[in-house]
């Protein structure tokens, strides 16, 4: 291995996976695999920290933060626990730390979730958005237009997320339901913090989005301004298949 490779191999990105045990049933860990591999293929080392309910976590040590979707049961426990980290997560967001939150975690990064039964699960209010339970389950293939191009995914939620005035959406719905099935908006953005309903998982088939998160982390930590390109033939082929499937 060349000397330059050796020195880049020392550069480490720390990924913090929030509540991997409690919120884990929709294949969202594929996003962690994707971030990890795309960093490793470029010669960086990855350290993965998994933090569950009650665990001690140093949010400041994280270069990328991820949280996935789960069941209501997991979400209730997580909603309470997440409050411990609210302040640190706000500080990290303002500091430009890239975060990806899917479905359940996305909802809890807003003002909170009111279930159909009227139960209030508090959020940490990074997004100016509120989620309410509905009787309609919004399920199917979904495509959205975003600053990173057209993204393909699969959505499966009954919560309807309503963005408040001034809260920027992540993308606009090309087909599917998005945040609430009516507004045409999908997800939310605040600095480098992204919330979305896209499972699939979202990152493997949408490498431009994955690389944007990676670049934001490398820029913030090491001042790196450009990523070495990768061969994304397989990624784009899968994206194309998804695009052709009915909603």
């Amino acid at each position, binding site marked *: 291995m060349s000397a330059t490779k050796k020195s880049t191999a020392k550069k480490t990105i720390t990924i913090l996976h929030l509540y991997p*045990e*409690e919120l*884990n*049933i*929709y*294949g*969202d*860990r*594929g996003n962690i*695999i*994707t971030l990890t*591999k795309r960093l490793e293929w470029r010669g960086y080392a990855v350290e993965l920290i998994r933090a*569950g*309910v*009650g665990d001690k976590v140093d949010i400041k040590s994280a270069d990328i933060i991820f949280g996935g979707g789960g*069941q*209501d*049961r*997991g*979400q*209730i*426990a*997580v909603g309470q626990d997440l409050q411990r980290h609210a302040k640190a997560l706000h500080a990290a967001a303002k500091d430009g730390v890239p975060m990806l939150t899917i479905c359940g975690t996305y909802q809890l990064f807003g003002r909170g979730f009111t279930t159909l039964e009227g139960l209030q699960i508090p959020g940490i209010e990074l997004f100016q958005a509120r989620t309410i339970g509905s009787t309609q*389950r919004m*399920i*199917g*293939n979904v495509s959205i237009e975003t600053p990173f191009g057209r993204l393909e995914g*699969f959505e*499966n939620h*009954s919560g309807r997320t309503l963005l408040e005035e001034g809260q920027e959406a992540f993308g606009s719905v090309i087909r599917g339901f998005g945040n609430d099935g009516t507004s045409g908006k999908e997800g939310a953005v605040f600095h480098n913090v992204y919330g979305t309903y896209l*499972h*699939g*998982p979202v990152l*493997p*088939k949408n490498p431009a989005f994955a690389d944007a998160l990676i670049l934001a982390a490398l820029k913030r930590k090491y001042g790196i301004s450009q990523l070495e390109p990768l061969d994304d033939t*397989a*990624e784009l*082929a*899968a994206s*194309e*298949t*998804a695009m052709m*499937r009915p909603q």
Partner: protein
Amino acid sequence: MPVFLTVLIAKSLLNLSRLIGRGGGSALPGLVAEKLDPQIGSKLAKRIPHGSIIVTGTNGKTTTSKMLARVLTDSGEHLVANRAGSNLSRGVVSALIEHISVSGRYNDTMGLFEVDEAAMPAVASMVQPRAIVVLNLFRDQLDRYGELDTTAGLIGRGIAATQAQLYLNADDPLVASLASYATNPDHVSYFGIDDVPTTKLSHDVTADSNTCPECGRALIYSKSFFGHIGHYRCPKGHIKRPQTAVSADKITLNDRSASFTVQVEDEQHQAKIFLPGLYNIYNALAATAVSNGIGISVDSTLESLSHVQAAFGRVEVISVGSKRLYLLLVKNPTGFNQVIHTFLLKNKQQNVLFIINDNFADGRDISWLWDVAFEELTAQHHTIDVSGIRATDMTLRLKYADIPVRATNDKVGQALNQFIDQLPENGTGYIVPTYTAMLDARKKLGRKVKLSGVWE
């Protein structure tokens, strides 16, 4: 409408649809009968002399029903049973109609129904079974059912509508928690495995319900077998693995069979089944628990179980000339991990064809592929082809496990031909399809060789 008239009309429909050869006509007569008389199912089920048994849960319904059918038949019962796959309300009603005589009587003695989780509220209250067995609950087609807890709630509603004796898997926390739905808490018993010889796959992350149903905290496991199956307790003391009435221990496994001891009350019995994998031991325990409950001796149950073959498509071996093909159905991450554990870690170099579809019956969301422990195969040197509607997704998943793919071809017929052609003489190939891919692959293989199994 009088019962006999509904039966007569539905029976004629059944014969007609058979005559024109529409796949045995398994659901249509039931559908029509229920339209004519919404209560027809419960009216007919009541007439089965020895009552009925319901088998439900995510994985193993068909195999467990097959096991129970063998045990019950060997003990002299004659069964009214629905066909595998026809496990919704109309499939059960169709079976009830098919078996009843025009005079309105059953010559059969007992009902045995495998029931889809989502159909439990309707079917359980219709059939009023004497026993319900719940095997396991894994995420499976979340796109169809919503959440796993929702699925559990549906089964619970079914249970609560009956007076049935419950047989629950002690090692699955969500299944064990279904006891709370029992109308009589004395009518609950558990089966489970004491210990296993295998270690859990290091990349197994399929713990779908590994949190406490009461408080949502992650459960603590003293033993972890696969997925969320094992010996667990809530850190706050809300739940723990219940005491078992029927349990297995001293397990030895290979890719064709499993040997183990079965403990019932204070007695130990030796068992051998010609079905591979831990999951089939659970199926055998479920069958043993039920048949023991209705008074069949453990030894004769185990004797019957030793004659059971795998349910069609689950594990099937097909010969094409000198070449041997395994057909291994996968439906969800837990089942896929079992296939990897049991079949794909045998040798360094095996030939494998994955066929992944995303039709309704497969589950339209293929996100679950990312929760399968493909990283177990990274150190192997398998030759892997990929096919099916979502072939490109599968190839991508393998890429991120650092596993190269020889050929990606969404056309199943072409992929199968190439895969078989490139197998060495006397070689073995492992075909791993999702549900509709399995039906498709089987149809195409049927043009090459005579297949023994029929889809019923």
